């Protein structure tokens, strides 16, 4: 131990030196990087790139240079110098500063979105958020010269995409985007091939409405309109060589400005509220029009968009195809599309709809189960496209064995909902087949179950129907059927089984032709299954008892 101390004494000097050296060396200040990110923002980044010098110049002239350098989440469509040279040629000027400053500002604002949007969220239609100028940009893709490119506003091709900078993302485009400065009315009026249609909108007074700038209502919903126009050629194909012939055919009140005049309706039927590009139409099955309560249906068949193509009563009504190429024409207050054929308002009389609730497309695919006696299958909310509900995971399609008391319904099948009540399954909602506008009586038929809810309410498009449904009530086999009908009941199947019952829920007014929603809400406790058979929508002026449904079969029985 002593020796160790001696050793320390002996080496004292060198220990001190080592310690000092360590301290001195350590003390030199370390340089920390004080910025967290060295990525440049848009303006700074552009200043380093000579190929975009002219756009930088525009930013400087318009005073947006410093703004585009602030932090934020922007998308910039960046025109190349060549594109801007072409723009100057369009204006007939030789320097950027010679372009009127207001127009230049609008142009710059049209190229900027206040959200970061990469090309993966582009669709065939408009970009979800508007440009800072207010107009929407539309995207798409073209294939020419052996390679495909994404396009913006149909004309500008993206040559480099998703360039990330500090405050957003940039897409380089080869053509300057131009603000649509014509209104819908002007767009139609100045197109020589639309002369008959233009005369029609003038004669009917719609010209003024199509000429108004975009306004916003109290919910800040813009007043954009979508017009489906048709060329003179299309009119000629339909036998109208001039506006006079069109007027002679349609204007039955001889006053086109009257909203009830058929010519006025003819025009109104082609104007829809909202800014609907073709991509929007492709996902909109029914589009409202300005003709009161009239809708047009839109269907995507392979790659063509068809207007009013539907199957009614098993008959296919051919639709009219939208001419894709010239469509998606942006105006300052909307968009114009063109069709390949003339079309007119479908005058349809109300038709009965017998909605077998178990007939859901997903159940239908189960070919070993669907309408095959002795089988059942359960599917969950997420798996059924036309049904939804609150609560428990699945509902069951059931086709009981032949001879089973539950098999007496139409098609011999039932939709089986276990415990229709709050906390299990409730607010079960169906999308109906297409119902033509008009007034209907609604009948709901079911297999009685003493453990089903004693009180359930039905809603058509969120409007409650007048009567409640007691699913514990048995069918009445004694009372004469017309007397029974007057009490709001009927024997809907033939031959009848008192295990089944049908109840008149009320009268509805279907305002638009199309698919609607129908919902059951249980107001009472239920310990067992609710078995639904058919929901009938029968026009009010139709016989409410006949045709009846064939028990355990698919037929209709007329007397």
């Amino acid at each position, binding site marked *: 131990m002593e020796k160790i101390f001696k050793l320390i004494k002996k080496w004292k000097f060198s220990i001190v030196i080592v310690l000092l050296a360590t301290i001195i060396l350590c003390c030199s200040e370390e340089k920390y990087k004080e910025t967290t990110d060295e990525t440049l923002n848009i303006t700074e980044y552009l200043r380093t790139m000579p190929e975009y010098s002219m756009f930088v110049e525009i930013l400087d002239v318009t005073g947006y240079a410093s703004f585009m350098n602030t932090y934020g989440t922007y998308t910039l469509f960046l025109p190349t110098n060549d594109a801007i040279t072409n723009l100057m040629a369009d204006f007939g000027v030789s320097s950027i500063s010679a372009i009127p400053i207001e127009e230049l500002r609008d142009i710059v604002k049209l190229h900027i979105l206040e959200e970061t949007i*990469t*090309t*993966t969220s*582009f*669709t*065939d*239609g408009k970009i979800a958020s508007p440009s800072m100028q207010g107009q929407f940009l539309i*995207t*798409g*893709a*073209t*294939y020419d010269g*052996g*390679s*495909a*490119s*994404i396009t913006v506003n149909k004309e500008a091709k*993206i*040559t*480099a*995409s*998703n360039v990330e900078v500090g405050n957003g993302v940039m897409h380089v485009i080869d053509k300057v985007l131009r603000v649509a400065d014509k209104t819908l009315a002007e767009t139609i009026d100045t197109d020589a091939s639309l002369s008959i249609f233009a005369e029609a909108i003038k004669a009917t007074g719609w010209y003024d409405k199509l000429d108004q700038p975009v306004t916003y209502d109290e919910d800040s919903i813009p007043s954009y309109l979508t017009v489906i126009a048709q060329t003179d050629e299309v009119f000629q194909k339909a036998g109208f060589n001039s506006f006079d012939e069109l007027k002679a055919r349609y204007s039955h009140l001889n006053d086109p400005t009257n909203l009830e005049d058929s010519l006025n309706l003819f025009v109104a039927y082609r104007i829809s509220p909202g800014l609907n590009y*073709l*991509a*929007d139409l*492709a*996902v909109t099955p029914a589009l409202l029009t300005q003709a009161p309560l009239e809708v047009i249906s839109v269907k*995507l068949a*392979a*790659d063509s968009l068809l207007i009013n193509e539907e199957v009614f009563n098993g008959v296919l009504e051919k639709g009219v195809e939208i001419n*894709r190429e010239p469509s998606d024409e942006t105006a300052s207050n909307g968009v114009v599309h063109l069709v390949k054929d003339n079309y007119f308002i479908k005058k349809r009389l109300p038709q009965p709809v017998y909605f077998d609730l178990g007939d859901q497309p*997903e*159940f239908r*695919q*189960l*070919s*070993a*189960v*669907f309408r*095959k006696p002795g089988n059942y*299958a359960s*599917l969950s909310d*997420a*798996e059924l496209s036309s049904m939804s509900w609150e609560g428990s995971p699945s509902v069951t399609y059931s086709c009981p064995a032949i001879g089973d008391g539950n098999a007496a319904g139409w098609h011999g099948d039932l939709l089986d909902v276990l415990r229709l009540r709050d906390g299990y399954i409730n607010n079960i909602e169906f999308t109906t087949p297409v119902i033509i506008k008009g007034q209907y009586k609604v009948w709901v038929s079911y297999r009685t179950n003493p453990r089903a809810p004693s009180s359930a309410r039905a809603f058509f498009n969120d409007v409650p129907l007048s009567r409640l449904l007691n699913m514990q009530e048995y069918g009445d086999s004694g009372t004469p059927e017309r007397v029974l009908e007057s009490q709001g009941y009927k024997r809907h199947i033939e031959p009848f089984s008192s295990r089944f019952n049908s109840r008149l829920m009320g009268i509805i007014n279907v305002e638009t032709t199309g698919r609607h929603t129908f919902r059951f809400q249980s107001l009472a406790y239920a310990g067992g299954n609710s078995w639904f058979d058919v929901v009938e929508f029968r026009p009010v002026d139709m016989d409410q008892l006949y045709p009846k449904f064939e028990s355990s079969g698919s037929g209709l029985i007329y007397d």
Partner: protein
Amino acid sequence: MRTRIFNVILLAVVLLQSCDNYLDLRPENGTTREEFWQTKEDVKAAVTGIYLSLLNTPPSESDLTIPEYIFMYGELRGGMVSAAQYTSDDQIDMLTTNILPSNSLTTWRAFYRVINFCNTVIDLGPPVLDLDPTFTQEELNTYLAEALTIRAYMYFTLARTFKDVPLKLEATLSDEDNFQLPTTPQADIFAQVVQDLLDAEAMAVETYESVAENKGKITKNTINTMLTDVYLWQEDYDNALIAADKVITNTNETYELIEASPSWFTSVYARGNTSESIFELQYTTQNLNPFYFMFLLAPQYLAEASVLEDVFGLDFNDPENKDIRGERASMVPGTNEIYKYTGFDENNRKSFAESDTHWFIYRYADLLLMKAEALNELNRGEEALLIIEELREARAAIDLTEEQVTGDNKNGVRQYILAERARELAFEGKRWFDLLRNARKENYAYINLIINVAIQSAPANQQQTIVAKLQDPNSHYLPINEYELYTNKALVQNPFYK
């Protein structure tokens, strides 16, 4: 004095002992190359490692497995798969032909990892012959054939997916290796693949000792099947036919289609290694497959809703009349769940602990249909139709999916073969490659095959964009991942992804 001597000795002992370990730079938890590659067992272990790397990702990596990538590359764009609850955004972008270089699914690391394992065996295996006198040339040849074939399959898959890819044929053994490799054109990659497979075929064995080895390891038959596939991509139909016939007429290992019966699904898929199997990745109950999560527990994919009706055909009048490959074999009707890899039989799924269904790289039916394709292209459509008929007979295919074509209708037969491949190889990672291979024939004469799939399956509001993009052949290949571009400056991005 005595203590001093004692101290010196103590110091010496301490220093000598500790220094040994302290100064040793070799890793403590691994084996180095100098220690390994000494005996034939080492070579065998390395080859086994290659197979294992096809089945699983090494524990140090957080990648997906090879079958998962092949499934995504082969199915997502093929129109038979749609998104499910757990589909990632990157997967959805691939489903909708909306792929950017930042998409994580475009990383090819998993493939090059396997390639490097193969290269290591090819480079370091032969010198072992001198070190281990019990190691025979024959054994070495078998191992080399296995490594060459698996490497060829990796490059074949990469070239079909990315078009031009870097070709590295030597092992990467140190950090000093050159990693700045440019891409090699697709045609050259295919040529290299053919060369490797021909070399391998000369060295490979006909059969091993057990069935599991015959189906799970590389044999001459595996190699010739793969050659058929590559020749079809090269549009070299004469050689494709020759290679296919070598397998079909091989007497050492004979294949046959198993007749349709309720146990067909269980034997072919749930158990595997049947007489219709050529090469399968052998998952076991000790080494479970990744599919149970993918398709059942946290489903990432569903069958496209129209598949049951459009691909397999649905007889609404007689539910018993069905193609054994459809309902409860490939998929579950109604829910559209993909069933091939999780089912045990018609009624029961496997449990998670038994989830050992193999990944099927080549099956006999696949080879037969490839042969039919070669025959058809060689204007021998009638013979091709006979093959389709034989297969349909064995699978109890329903009349609704039978097509009335004659042998001289080349395009008709081509479509029929494609439709039959959709039924036979549903969800086996082949669909997109089948479409692409046929579309690119004769300088993209049949590009409509791909466009029509997009028209059917694209989201309605993106359809036009997708169709226009797909006109560009470069869009049929994935972009090089941005990370690869960043680390390897010699790479040039596919021009479509500008």
